[in-house]
């Protein structure tokens, strides 16, 4: 499998919402390639007839009775918020850059 270029690593960081500077890109890009090279060894190990495993212990979906149980209070839920206002999470502007 092909090597990741520095631009591709920058794109991945963008997708992952991590603001990497040039020095970090220089440091991390070669390490990512070493890791990808190692994990690429599984290519072709399992044939098309092998079903994928997403979960180690087979379980069907679990439901509970539809009854009200106590949850966190608004105060508790907001207790770790960087900013809160009127019982809500206060966030930076969400429009403007591309919209």
């Amino acid at each position: 499998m092909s090597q990741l270029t520095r631009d591709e690593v920058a794109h991945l960081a963008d997708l992952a919402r991590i603001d990497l500077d040039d020095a970090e890109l220089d440091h991390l890009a070669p390490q990512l390639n070493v890791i990808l090279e190692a994990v690429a060894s599984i290519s072709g190990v399992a044939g098309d007839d092998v079903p994928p495993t997403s979960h180690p212990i087979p379980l069907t979906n679990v439901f509970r009775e539809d009854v009200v149980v106590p949850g966190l209070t608004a105060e508790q839920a907001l207790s770790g918020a960087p900013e809160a206002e009127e019982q809500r999470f206060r966030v930076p502007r969400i429009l403007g850059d591309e919209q």
Partner: protein
Amino acid sequence: MSDELIKKTAAELADALAAGETTSVEVTRAHLDRILEVDGTAESGVHAFLHVDAEGALTQAAESDARRTAGRARHLLDGVPIAVKDVLATQGLPTTCGSKILEGWVPPYDATVVRRIKDAGLPILGKTNMDEFAMGSSTEHSAYGPTRNPWDQTRIPGGSGGGSAAAVAAFEAPLALGTDTGGSIRQPGAVTGTVGVKPTYGGVSRYGLVALANSLDQVGPVTRTVLDSALLHELIGGHDPLDSTSVDAPVDGFVAAARQGATGDLKGLKVGVIKELAGEGWQPGVMQRFAETVDLLTELGAEVTEVSCPTFVHAMATYYLILPAECSSNLAKFDAMRYGLRVVPDGDPSAEAVMKATRDAGFGDEVKRRIMIGTYALSSGYYDAYYGQAQKVRTLISRDFAAAFEGVDVLVSPTSPTTAFPLGEKLDDPLAMYLQDLATIPANLAGVPGISVPAGLADEDGLPVGFQVLAPALADDRLYRVGAAVEAALTDRWGGPILAKAPTLEGPR
């Protein structure tokens, strides 16, 4: 007196409390004193703890003593103090996951396992150090500085749960909780000369465990003896409606299995030695102690055969695709909006710019690497080749286990390919670090339980070696039977517990 108390096992402390020979306050204070004496700081000392809750622990201890005096002890372990890995939510106590992005976060709720130890009356001494978000095998990826191995403070204590393992090895706590996603309980157990158990996937609730990789994570006991692990496992295990992957199966029988195993009779037990977990890269001293322990099993009456699990050679590659894929999704929640760090760049930045700046400042290198690998493995065009293929190989690994367990009751291997390596040695070589987990990863991929028990000290460096036992899903009792048999026979041979050979710890100056 306090030295005697900290050297006791949890089971001995429980007996002493029940007999009225000591109090929970005395026991808890002895461990808090020990923490003050040897734990030190990020710069020196063991540094097993990120947060010590002396006041809370002593209050809980006093309450425990009052209950016991009134004849209302809630559990055998009521009053026996415990340390908790910092990846488990503790209401009112900071929970950082070893990350700057959660610095100072105090959860508004308890993880189910924390609730259970609180309900049983175990005072919580504090939160233990770990690799950031449990990503690592050395605890060096903690944003708050590494934990140092009590056997040699220039070496790693294993990871990610190096703090929990070092805390019990240094007699700072008789019990600790850990989590194991690819070996994070067992490998630290191996390199610190302690016992660690990864239960069957779903056997212990994950509710309130900050997820690294949901399909791999499991909470388990970290202790100095097999019996103590069994006691703690029975307390924390069992069905939890708050965890949809929780298995509704009984969790009793572990203590009985440990007691039975300690009699040293393994007659009729079929043991398979995993052929693939040996060879190049495996330290000779580790292989030597392993081979001797396998011989010991034969002496105790077990039938030992060699078993091949051919797909295990692909376990590491499989794991390092599935784990990053799951963690890149899980860690998306650290978005600077609802909890944790928020870094606001100059000007009038958008939410997205705040998110990116925060995640850059708040995550360390290993977390960034894994998030980006996961993002890549899940991206369209690469999904089938990487993540899809890894999920299929995961099926093959489970089939290898199933085939092996048709012929044997348990599988064994060394827990880790090497003893504790020097701090810093593999910090910038992710692949070398990943190789530490070669022997522990297959169990997580297949969901089967595993234990690491001390097998002695390697000749070349005098450092602890771990012996791993793996059992079929929901047959965790076999780990305790075999683990206790090995422990009893080796302790007898050595003339005392392995930790009696560890150097005396001196407080940092």
